[in-house]
């Protein structure tokens, strides 16, 4: 059936519009507010991306991205973050159906994959600093460490948040407020993966291909 026809056939009296129905449920208000925060966070990342794109060639005679980046490490990091986003989604399904074991299992795998990502990133940073490619070496490296480090900081905060949420699930069970926070966490984690797609493409893949 044509969707326009289908919409016309919904009895409008039976479904009052949102403005007539009074305030939205708290879950929707909370998640929408967090959605706005995430978008502002992504705008901040856009500023970091812009400064990186401007400074990427300002290597001051120092190492370039093509000399520094190890694609194998980056591929493993990408896989970790993508699969942790998937397990985070499965965890939110378990939360919605109030299953404790699946929630804990999903959170555990999400946390482990996020921790592997963070460990690989810290190891990459340390190996770069060890060969003299520290943030103070060139404007390119300053922009690189700011952008990728800011994403890594978000991942670290996400891991702390996930741990706190699992403690809350253990203490309070699936109370409404705990479910709202878990919804916000899954939004945050998926948004981090979207930012990582940008980092992977702009920093690493464009860095090694040019």
């Amino acid at each position, binding site marked *: 059936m044509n969707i326009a026809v289908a919409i016309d056939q919904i009895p409008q009296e039976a479904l009052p519009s949102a403005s007539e*129905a009074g305030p939205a449920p708290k*879950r929707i208000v909370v998640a*929408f507010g967090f959605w706005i925060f995430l978008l502002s966070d992504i705008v901040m990342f856009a500023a970091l991306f812009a400064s990186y794109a401007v400074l990427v*060639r300002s290597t001051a005679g120092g190492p370039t991205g093509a000399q520094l980046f190890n694609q194998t490490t980056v591929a493993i990091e990408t896989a970790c973050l993508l699969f942790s986003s*998937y397990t985070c989604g499965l965890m939110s399904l378990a939360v919605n159906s109030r299953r404790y074991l699946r929630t804990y299992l999903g959170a555990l795998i999400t946390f482990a994959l996020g921790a592997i990502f963070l460990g690989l990133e810290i190891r990459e940073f340390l190996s770069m600093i060890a060969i003299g490619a520290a943030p103070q070496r060139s404007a390119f490296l300053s922009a690189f460490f700011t952008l990728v480090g800011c994403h890594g900081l978000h991942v670290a905060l996400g891991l702390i948040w996930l741990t706190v949420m699992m403690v809350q699930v253990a203490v309070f069970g699936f109370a409404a407020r705990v479910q709202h926070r878990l919804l916000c966490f899954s939004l945050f984690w*998926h948004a981090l993966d979207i930012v990582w797609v940008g980092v992977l493409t702009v920093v690493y893949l464009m860095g090694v*291909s040019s």
Partner: protein
Amino acid sequence: MTEVRHERAPGDRPSREMNESAPSEFLVYTIGLVVAVLLTATSFWTANTTLLWSGGVVLGLAVLAIAQMGIHLVFFLHISSGPESTNNVLALAFGALIVFVVIAGTMWIVADMNTNMMMPSGAPMSMRMQH
């Protein structure tokens, strides 16, 4: 007045009771994962291959990245074009506009300043970019 039409929270799927024909949520996440893996693998291949014209690689990578962000939004964050998702989509569109203005505007302005910067005519172009 038991049934009320509200906006949907970002990240929420329509409930199965309201729409029996909707695919299972597990399937939605799995399709999203498979497509995202395929797009990521294509991105890595594009960056490393010598088969493609090197001038087009950057554009191709950008297209693949934007496609994958769209996949994440639809399959992981459940952003839809439905009427109950209007507020989320409007906020997202505004965010995308600001992101575009910040990135494109910065690159445009700074590239313009680089070309207009007064330098001794003997200095090579690379001198301006290296510091």
